[in-house]
């Protein structure tokens, strides 16, 4: 097992009368690409700023290699940050921006220029030393910001929605590159984003947050396939969320039918919520399925059709490559492994 690098223990943070963090506990391991994912205002950026040292937690502990650091100022921490809008110093050129931290540490000039050169090579900007940072494109500024942080050889790199200001195409490319850089330097990346696709494609571990609380921690696959509650299910990907109850282990009832499933560990007759991902559903002739309904709307999405099917109880969203005309009566088919049962939770 990898070593724990950062431990957050029951962090809370109040701004004026508002509690933005309500007890965050999280372990961050060496070499890990960890993403804090959630809608804006969920507390992910505040968590990051506490790790960076820009905010002090109202309560709780931040341990770095087992040592409490929540009162240590940012410039004494072995972490560096890539800011949302890069925060490049506009009056310094590319090389001076990258060298900023090394200059403060009074590193020898020749060593600095060597390191700057190596960093620029890594982020693919060799020869850009004397460029004016304000004249660079968004993607290039992004790379300089990453180089500026990494040149200080931090143990952890914090990234606060670094791709937010880029357009879609460059964004895709930067995702791949970030992942590559992380593997190359072999340090921990803590990444904040509200973009679920970004989180799922880059991370080793995803922390889903909402309302100042952690909703679920897991690998991207776990998060997607086994959402622990309604919030995670609806925030990540599209889903049909249906209220029902567990008859017993491996048997769940919803929409007046009983279905075999792979979930267990709930109390008998416990109220639960069931997630059915649209792409896990198939349309068949009505006589082959328990739940039947009528096609109300069909939209072509490129790879698949999005079909809205009205059953007796609700509207189902189905993604399938099969075509069915509006008004046709059909059945919904899914297997036990397509049913994800979650604890029922409060109002979301």
């Amino acid at each position, binding site marked *: 097992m990898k070593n724990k690098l950062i431990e957050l223990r029951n962090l809370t943070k109040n701004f004026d009368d508002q509690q933005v963090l309500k007890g965050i506990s999280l372990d961050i391991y060496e070499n890990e690409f960890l993403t804090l994912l959630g809608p804006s205002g969920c507390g992910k950026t505040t968590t990051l700023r506490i790790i960076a040292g820009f*905010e*002090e937690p109202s309560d709780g502990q931040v341990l770095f290699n087992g040592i409490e650091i929540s*009162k240590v*100022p940012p410039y004494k921490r072995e972490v560096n940050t890539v800011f949302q809008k890069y925060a490049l110093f506009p009056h310094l050129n590319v090389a001076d921006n990258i060298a900023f931290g090394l200059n403060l540490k009074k590193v020898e000039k020749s060593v600095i220029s060597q390191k700057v050169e190596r960093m620029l090579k890594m982020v693919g900007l060799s020869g850009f030393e004397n460029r004016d940072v304000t004249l660079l494109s968004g993607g290039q500024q992004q790379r300089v910001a990453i180089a500026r942080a990494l040149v200080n050889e931090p143990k952890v790199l914090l990234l606060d929605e670094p791709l937010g200001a880029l357009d879609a195409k460059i964004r895709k490319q930067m995702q791949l590159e970030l992942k590559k850089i992380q593997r190359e330097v072999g340090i921990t990346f803590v990444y904040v984003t509200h973009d679920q696709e970004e989180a799922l494609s880059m991370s080793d571990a995803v922390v889903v947050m909402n309302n100042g609380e952690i909703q679920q921690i897991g690998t991207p696959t776990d998060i997607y396939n086994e959402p622990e509650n309604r919030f995670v299910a609806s925030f990540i990907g599209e889903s049909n969320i249906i209220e029902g109850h567990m008859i017993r282990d491996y048997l769940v009832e919803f929409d007046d039918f009983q279905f075999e499933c792979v979930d267990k560990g709930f109390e008998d007759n416990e109220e639960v919520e069931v997630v059915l991902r649209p792409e896990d559903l198939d349309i068949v002739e009505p006589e082959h399925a328990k739940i039947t309904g009528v096609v109300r709307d069909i939209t072509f999405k490129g790879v698949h059709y999005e079909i809205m099917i009205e059953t007796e109880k609700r509207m189902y969203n189905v993604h399938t490559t099969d075509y069915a005309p509006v008004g046709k009566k059909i059945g919904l088919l899914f297997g036990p492994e397509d049913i994800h049962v979650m604890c029922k939770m409060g109002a979301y």
Partner: protein
Amino acid sequence: MRRRNRAGMWMVLPLTIFTLIFVAAPLLYMVFLSFASQSSSGFGVEWKFTLENYKRILDPVYRNTFYGSLRLAFSTTALNILLGYPFGYFMAKLSAKKKKAAVLFLMLPFWLNSLIRLYGWIILLQKKGLVNEVLLRLHLIDKPLKILYSYPAILIGMVYVLLPFMALSVYSSAEKLDWSLAEAARDLGAGRCYAFFTIIFPLTLPGLFSGIILTFIPSMGLFFIADILGGNKIVLVGSLIQEQMTRGNNWPFAAALAMVLLVVTSLLLGLYKKLTNSDVLEGIG
């Protein structure tokens, strides 16, 4: 966080100390002074609480000074609205290039000593000055008018010095206007005038209000204009304060006059904030 505050604390000290000692303390001192008595020896201050200074303002001589100042301030402001509103409004409608030049020329007077600009008026308005000369040559008058050292001269000087403030305030309000609103109104069938008074004018009100504040407040205190162009014949609150401070040596009374002036100005500023829900005066900064 705590460290940042400590460093910030250190940097805020000069401003705090300076502001407290040389802005807050003197103003506070004035409040106390206005309730003190003039020393019986005729010079200096005796720290005996009295309302005498305020009562004295009600004395007809001084009350009339206040009325006079208010009247001048009102006339100045009214003239400024009449001249300055169209000024700022038309400016906002100039083409981008002309607009730039116009703004420059409008800002320029702020940089030029107002005394010098007033001095130009003395030259123009004097008995053998250019204005009289032109009027005589045009046979509009038979003998030179005595404009200088009269009420109209003061009014000219006041309006002249304060007009840029009004024009600039209105301009900055009108400049931000979404002209398509007026077009929309015209499209919906509004006449030119109707569109102006229902759409444009209400939207430029913040600028007009701040222009009024920016002209009214100084016009209560600009004693030197009355002094230069009015030849000291017309006494205003400003001149009265100056006189009491220098020649009359009745500082408590001067302080009381200043207090009343200050209260009037703050009331106006308060009114402005109420009317526009804004802290910043249009056209400043």
